[in-house]
């Protein structure tokens, strides 16, 4: 009996049940909400968030109050870089991918150096970096006209490429498999959990904790860059601060997925469900005919309500 109870308290199970419930709710509020087309569209939007959340996930798993608030800035910057590099030509896709990954890695590296060498709390370091990135966006926007997505990239994100499913969803599935393999089957993955639960013990056991942590921030920056690139493919052209929304929603997706903000516990499968949950919730709110203020109030209140299902802190005991 208690094992049945425990099963239903697992975040992944909770998230999946809530996803089904929300789809049923959406369908009853607006017929066609749960149609195959709509679900594919929700999956595309969810994969953008899910890709950002993959990086956020590893930084949070690494512990020491690990968090990356700069992801939103990297997403925006990467969308702009990609647009300017490819500027509507398919031949520019590969250089754009490389440029975006390099930019994501550089900003991740800077975050990681600030957190490990200067020992600035990640919240503050990545927040400062977000300010720098936002300033950089203004500089770039003033100088260069922002470019367009190449047709190939747009097709990859929005058109079916195999089994009627768009490429970005396949990419997300591939990232999911990669993350599951990395976290569960590789030494690197095991070490992430090790430094997340006790970095001193991990250090004593010979894990290069600082190098690891720098690596995690670089991974986060690169995933955010990939998401920015795909976001450009999704929307066709980049506009100011497109990535801003990903900053905190990526953290919420990770939390809904059952990863503890304290680090060392959780995984990416739940985060994928968490991203989907969040996107469906937003989808329902856009279909319901209420104005922006009501939408925000309902969204905030629902987030709080949902959080009651997920890993609450323990009550104080003497």
């Amino acid at each position, binding site marked *: 009996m208690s094992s049945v109870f425990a099963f239903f308290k697992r975040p992944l199970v909770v998230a999946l049940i809530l996803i089904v419930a929300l789809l049923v709710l959406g369908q009853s509020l607006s017929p066609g909400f749960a149609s195959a087309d709509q679900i594919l569209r929700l999956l595309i939007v969810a994969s953008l968030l899910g890709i950002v959340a993959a990086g956020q996930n590893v930084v949070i798993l690494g512990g020491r109050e690990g968090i990356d608030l700069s992801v939103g800035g990297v997403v925006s910057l990467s969308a702009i870089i990609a647009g300017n590099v490819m500027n509507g030509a398919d031949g520019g896709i590969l250089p754009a991918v490389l440029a975006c990954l390099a930019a994501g890695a550089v900003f991740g590296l800077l975050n990681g150096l600030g957190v490990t060498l*200067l020992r600035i709390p990640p919240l503050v370091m990545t*927040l400062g970096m977000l300010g720098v990135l936002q300033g950089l966006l203004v500089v770039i926007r003033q100088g260069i006209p922002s470019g367009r997505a190449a047709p190939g990239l747009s097709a990859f994100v929005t058109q079916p490429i195999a089994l009627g499913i768009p490429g970005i969803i396949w990419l997300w599935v591939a990232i999911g498999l990669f993350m599951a393999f990395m976290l569960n089957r590789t030494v690197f993955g095991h070490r992430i959990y090790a430094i997340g639960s006790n970095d001193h013990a991990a250090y004593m056991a010979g894990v290069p904790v600082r190098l690891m942590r720098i690596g995690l921030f670089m991974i986060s920056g690169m995933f955010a860059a990939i998401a920015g690139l795909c976001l450009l493919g999704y929307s066709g052209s980049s506009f100011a601060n497109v990535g801003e929304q990903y900053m905190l929603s990526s953290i919420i997706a990770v939390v809904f997925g059952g990863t503890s903000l304290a680090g060392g516990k959780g995984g990416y499968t739940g985060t994928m469900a968490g991203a989907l949950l969040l996107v469906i919730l937003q989808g329902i709110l856009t279909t319901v005919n209420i104005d922006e203020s009501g939408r925000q109030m309902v969204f*905030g209140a629902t987030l709080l309500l949902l959080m009651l299902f997920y890993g609450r802190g323990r009550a104080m005991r003497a």
Partner: protein
Amino acid sequence: MTSIATDISTPRSGGLRSWLERYPFLPALVILIALLALNGLFSPNSLSFRSLAGLLSTYMALVMLAIAQTYVVSAGDIDLSAGATLSLVNVAIVVLMERWGGGAGAVLLALTLGLLIGLACGLVNGLVVAALRLQAIVATFATSIFFTGLALYVMPVAGTPAPTIFWRTYGGRLLGLPFVFYVLAALAILLFLLSRTRIVTELLAVGDDQQAAYQTGLPVVAVRIKGYLLCGLFSALAAFCLTGDTASGDPLVGGKMTLYSVAAVVLGGSALAGGWTTVVGSLLGALTIGLVNSLVFFMGTPSEWQNFVQGLAILIVLMAGVLAGRRARV
């Protein structure tokens, strides 16, 4: 033997280090003075009494918000909704003042209600974080969305002006001194009185070690809720200053200020993990951020580069502050 003698640091033995231990905001103060000097170098006018008073009245809102943040950080929590609370109070008081005719009585009544709204926001945060035990970062982010929704409901688009009597008073003079100086003096008295109460000590005890605080008999949940109440109260005061400075209502005005308030707390020498905070430091930290922004302006930075240089400068100042503080503590 000597190691024992050095471990017990008396105020005399450590020199600079013991000074920093007693006054953790010293790095922020040094940075602040350096920035003032730089400001004077690039624009001698900026050190005039009048421009300093102007700077103070512009950044008083951030000072208040940074102090608000300090109280929750003391207990090891954080409030990402402080800026949204500020926005909500800002639009609420502007709408109320307008609806009630904009006279002195209307202003005072609206301000009283504004304080209550701030306290209510703080109570909501305290309940979800401390009583329902949700993680502070995500829970206060959710409440920030909720409060922003409320603010948008009260005033869908920015622009409703505040009554003349209100912003004239805030930006004006009283008995020959800029009004903002009285605000600062009142703030100093309020902070002094608060520092004499048990609540600050209790917050720090909870932030230092929740379990230990609980075992010594502190009502941890109640203490954390009180921290959020103080945060809501000071966020409302921040909204008053902001309304006085901008003379209008804007439902999204506080959004960007939340993260600055966190930066100011860290810059001031407080530990984000809780248990070690200084409101004076947060005040200096907020003014430092203000000075960085004005310095970038006075240096004649091209307008499109201003945001970038400001962001970079704040990041560098944060690094310097954190490094200096760490030397002192470890």
